């Protein structure tokens, strides 16, 4: 687990991630139609207001993945479906053949007894071991786990590994209040504000950052002590959300390399270029965009004036290119 990257770590990561950047760029563009499954499990509410929240959030997630993203969705209601039912679905998914992506939402109450994370459902609880076994059984499938439960922070250390993004609503097992995380996460999907890079779509990273910010603001506005601090573990290499976390601020280039930044919660924009010229320009644009991301990686190694001078040059090229593309169409 990597908490804070050193310079050497950063360089290694840059090299490895840059090499995969092109791959993921194309992946992001095509993900809507690929082999993706979404699994949503909501747990016991305990109190009516929690139960209502968990169900609403679960239903909304199902709608987004089914209706907007065209994904196959398994929705399990932990009030009715017991552990055996959930394990059956785990089994069904893992045995269904090669899967590109699994989006796994766990919404509800959970606890940690110093041995195991336990997600509260009717009958015996679902444990972290069972979740881990399930994820491990998926092989190369990219996994995006959103654990919107109390005590979920403990999952980051247990489940983190390459090709996985683990988002937890709390920073550790000691945050035991029912989290609000999912409410803001769903709000992010349709929010222009959450679209930080203004590419017209909200990525998983952007949704996480939006929710993280909104939660802090919510507690501050209410004058309450913040009882939940969301975490994100990406690809077994980068961790966001720890106290005084300034990784993205100090290394703006890293954001674009995270798996979470390439996984979107809305379908791709329909920019299909008809003319040959426009298609060539589009390829050129991808190249410039990569150069910009590369420059952002090197920001800390350059003087401020050199960096912004180079950045301006590239941005002017990009802007000019975009204008030409519009004209070409």
């Amino acid at each position, binding site marked *: 687990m990597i908490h804070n990257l050193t310079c050497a770590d950063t360089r290694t990561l840059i090299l490895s991630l840059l090499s995969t950047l092109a791959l993921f760029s194309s992946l992001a563009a095509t993900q809507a139609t690929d082999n993706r499954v979404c699994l949503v499990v909501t747990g016991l509410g305990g109190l009516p207001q929690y139960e209502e929240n968990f169900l609403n959030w679960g239903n909304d997630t199902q709608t987004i993945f089914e209706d907007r993203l065209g994904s196959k969705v398994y929705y399990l209601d932990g009030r009715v479906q017991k552990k055996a039912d959930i394990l059956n679905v785990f089994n069904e998914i893992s045995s269904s053949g090669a899967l590109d992506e699994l989006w796994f939402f766990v919404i509800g109450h959970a606890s940690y007894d110093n041995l195991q994370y336990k997600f509260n459902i009717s009958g015996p609880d679902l444990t972290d071991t069972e979740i881990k076994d399930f994820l491990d059984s998926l092989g190369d499938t990219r996994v995006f786990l959103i654990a919107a439960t109390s005590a979920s922070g403990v999952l980051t250390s247990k489940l983190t590994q390459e090709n996985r993004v683990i988002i937890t609503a709390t920073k550790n097992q000691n945050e035991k209040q029912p989290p609000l995380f999912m409410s803001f996460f769903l709000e992010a999907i349709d929010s*222009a504000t*959450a679209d930080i*890079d203004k590419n017209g779509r909200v990525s998983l990273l952007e949704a996480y950052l*939006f929710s993280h*910010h909104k939660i802090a603001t919510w507690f501050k506005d209410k004058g309450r002590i913040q009882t939940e601090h969301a975490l994100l573990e990406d690809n077994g290499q980068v961790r966001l959300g720890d106290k005084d976390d300034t990784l993205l601020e100090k290394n703006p280039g890293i954001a674009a390399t995270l798996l979470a930044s390439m996984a979107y919660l809305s379908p791709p924009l329909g920019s299909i270029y008809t003319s040959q010229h426009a298609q060539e320009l589009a390829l050129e644009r991808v190249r410039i965009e990569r150069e910009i991301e590369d420059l952002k990686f090197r920001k800390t190694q350059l003087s401020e004036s050199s960096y912004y001078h180079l950045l301006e040059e590239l941005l002017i090229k*990009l*802007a000019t290119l975009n204008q030409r593309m519009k004209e070409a169409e």
Partner: protein
Amino acid sequence: MKPLLLIFLAFSLTPGYSQENETDRAPKALLTEIKQLMHHGHYERAQELLRNGPRNDPFILRLLLELAQRQGRDDEVNDYAHSLLDLYASEQLIDSDEIVQAAYGAWKLGQFQNSNQIFIAAGKTKPTTVSMFIDWGHLYLTKYNAAEAEAIFRDAIMVEYPSLAYTRWDMDAAYVGLAQALDAQFKTGADEALNKALELNPENLEARVLKAQRALKKTRWQEAKKWLEEGLEINPNYLPLLEVKGSSQFLQGKDSAFEKTRSKILKINPNNGDFFEMLGDFSVFQRHFDQAIDFFRQALKHNPRQASARASLGINLLRMGHEEEGAKILEVAYTQDPFNIWTVNTLRLLDSFDHFVRVETPNLQIKLHESEADVLKPYAEELAQRSLKTLQDKYNHQISDKYIFEMYPDHADFAVRTLGLPGLGALGATFGRIVAMDSPSARPKGEFHWGSTLWHEMAHVVTLSLSNDRVPRWLTEGISMMEERQAGAGWGEPLTVGFVKAYEQNALLPLADLNLGFEQPKNRQQLTLSYFQAGWVCEFLFRRYGLEKIRSMLVAFGQETTAEKVFQKVLQSSIEEVDEQFHKELSATLTPLIKRLSQLPSMPLRNIPMEGPQNTGEDSMYNLESLEKSWQINPDNYFLNLQLGSMLKALGRPQEALLYLETALDLFPAHADRSSPYALLSAIYEELSQKDNAIEMRRRWWQARPLYVENAYKLSSLLIETNQHQEAAQYLEEVMYLDPFHSETHERLGEIYLESGQFKKAIREFEVFLSLSPIDIATAHYKMAQAFSQLGNVESSRKHVLLSLEIAPGHEEAQELLLKLVRK
């Protein structure tokens, strides 16, 4: 033999001590006689008898020590103290009261922890005496722990009394100690304890000292004089009495008498720093800080070991803005006395100053905590400068010195800056050259209008300066309250039901005594009432006599010593005459309200719901019926109308509720909190989709009480919905005086300003927005770039458009702006 040899060595150091009778204890009769001689000021005779007393008697040594101390013979004090400790070390002090003398010796040597340990040992040796507790309690009082001292003095009072053996103190001293501890904590009961002490011992001097001091603080000169004369008749050389006498003469401006007393004090004890420290303390009490500094310096000149005077010097230098010298002096004071909590707290506060950002203006150095400086600076700087200029112009007085204006995000720091201790209930304070107040972070949202408080404090700056710091508290507070109310619609404190009730119950202080409501309030309620009353008195003076007369009063207070003289000179009336006029006007305003605000037996105040009644079932119907019956008899009762309106609203009968709530609003429009008719009517109009009425009601609510951010947000949203963007911006601007940390307000304001061509304001808002670490940084930078571009500032525009595109390279509008800027 070894112990005996040690004893001999110890006493061989004691000056002027006979080596005869070295193993004897002095008889009780002799000790009592010496104590009486000292009590009556016959110090020479006492000294003679003491020198002939047995050399190893701890009580003789103790009295010798006290005598040397009274006469400023510090070396002898140390020698006697050491001798007492040697006796203790050689286990010659057997019973509790003997051991206490060693504790006293350790205390006088500055070994406070050791002294406390010896007191503990004395406490474990039974039987204990009242005298032990009294000395012990005084150790705690000296070391700034009045609460613990109080407990010890209360223990003293419980001791079985009288003791058969000689004791230094009797039960009367326990009551004096208790009074001192209560007085130090501003608690009630000190006078009663002093009366008890005097009942037990009509000749008690310390009780008279405290009685006189307390009278002086209330400027009751005659009462103080009585206590002093009585005491000095018993002991004309008793320094604490002479010190209070000298202070009284100084405070009354009796210069020649003061010089005489000063000479007498220094003749008795040429090293007396206490007198000057007392003068310094009284000067601080009167907020004459320069004068206080001068006295504390004199105290240290006479007694450089007086750590308390050094600490006070340091703290008051800080109050006058001399940070560097104050800090240095406090460092020394700390090494001399690390127990002084005022020193420790102030040094800690000084350390925290590294985290404050300083902003210089012509008249102010503004200090804001680094964590909130980016957000507060634009608004605090603007308002501080505007208020100071407005008030200086209004009172035709330019302040000459630069003031330090500080905003504290931690209320405890503000309290330490103000009093040296946490626990202050106020929101702001002006003293010396310092204006300190809570920042909005220090208070719960929706309870603190920091703009109003700032204005209040700036009014103090002007009134204190205009009166050479001699304006009485009621007048400076009253003017500040008045100025707050004139600074903005709804600013300051509105009329409350509590004030009307206090008027009805005749609980307001006469104008001549109004200062006591600030300086010696009986309780918190009296302090609150006094603020409000003082404000209304000033508004009355403003209406009746005009601002120029108020200004003249301030000038006159800088020259005259009594309020009576000032009233006669400026208003040609006595205080009582002015008070009578004020009360006539007050009566005309408040008498009609008394009936409207009366509580009916069937409708206690506590039944008024905050957000409408919770119970809307059968019980409510029953209540509704009974309320309607009451209303038939009392249709002009405010609470009945409010309760009926609120109940009908909750029952889903808004049209009927409107009638009662509108009536309630007419009957007492000053009530504007979250359970007021304003709030309920706004909600009803919104329920009924009467947008214009809702806007108007929310406007009126805001103008009556601009304290509730939710009202401003709702009002501005309604105004934006109806395309009244500029007015919406006005309310959002005012929200900055309540909650400047809400990022969305800045974003919305920035957008309104950008759209309406107010580009500088737009930049200010987006700058603050960005300092709050928002999510959508790219858009904010782009909008700043737009505003800079509109102002023709290509360089800044280019910088911000780059910052926007760095985060969002695909941001099309930013790309277009970049190309436009490049082409320029």
